[in-house]
């Protein structure tokens, strides 16, 4: 199995497991694609986590504010109507669990990897770019009338222990 297929399968397993266990929601498999272009401007909530080691890059989870609030309400079992700290924190933890489980599976193929602390962006008309990497493995998970987007970009590193930025490189426009 090549790494792209492995990552795709791993994301599917991780997302369905996290949603089933933490939210009691059974999601179907994600719709996979590979994106090479500069990302379009985004609206909504996007959570990033850096991956470092022999392979390095970024994993992200993004969705609309409405879906983020719903995820928060399901996870915390408390109704949430505004984009408050709980919502952003829940998205960060969701990303930590999804990408963390992908990381654990990938370690069997590429060796030990490290994870950063998640960062969450919420706003309108913002762009993100991960420095040095242009190919993203993308899975879209439909949930009723919303979509959860999970992206991973990973590339081999010449010097595994070298310190470099693995977090989202730039944010083109400030979050509102």
């Amino acid at each position, binding site marked *: 199995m090549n790494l792209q297929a492995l990552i795709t399968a791993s994301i599917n397993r991780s997302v369905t497991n996290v949603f089933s266990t*933490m939210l009691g929601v059974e999601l179907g498999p994600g719709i996979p694609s590979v994106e090479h272009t500069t990302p379009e401007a985004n609206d909504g909530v996007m959570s990033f986590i850096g991956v470092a080691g022999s392979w390095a890059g970024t994993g992200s989870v993004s969705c609309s504010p409405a879906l983020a609030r719903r995820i928060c309400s399901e996870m*915390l079992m408390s109704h949430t109507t505004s984009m408050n700290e*709980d919502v952003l924190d829940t998205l*960060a933890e969701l990303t930590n*669990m999804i990408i*963390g*489980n992908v990381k*654990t599976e990938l370690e069997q193929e590429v060796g*030990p990897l490290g994870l950063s*602390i998640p960062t969450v962006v919420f706003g309108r008309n913002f762009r993100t770019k991960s420095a040095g990497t242009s190919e993203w493995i993308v899975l879209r998970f439909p949930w009723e009338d919303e979509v959860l987007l999970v992206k991973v970009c990973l590339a081999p590193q010449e010097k595994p222990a070298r310190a470099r930025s693995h977090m989202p490189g730039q944010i083109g426009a400030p979050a509102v």
Partner: protein
Amino acid sequence: MDSDVLVVDDSAAIRKILQRVLRQTGMAIRAVYEAGDGEEALTVLDTHKVDLVLSDINMPRMDGLQLLASLKAAEQWRHIPVVMITTEGGEAKVGEAVRLGAAGYVRKPFTADQIKEKLVGILEPAIPL
């Protein structure tokens, strides 16, 4: 005897979930204290006696492995069981936690039953079910 538990995680969401899950275990838990990282946990432990620590591994400032090492190196805290609750499933981090003296670990995502199962194994003599 009712037990006091310290939950250490930089995610407030996970701390809230664990608060709820601990109350659902049916065990005699008196208080659940919270800390956002290892340093905060040590501050809580300075002023509160706890019977169990549930700790994340990846946290800012002082992570869970550093906290575990600090607890096992301190005469007054080394007896406290520490269960790691983490996304880290790799041998490196889990092995390090076991080497440092962790009483066990639970992978995120977790179910209430997985948490309960781990607590029963550790606190059974102190917590009548």
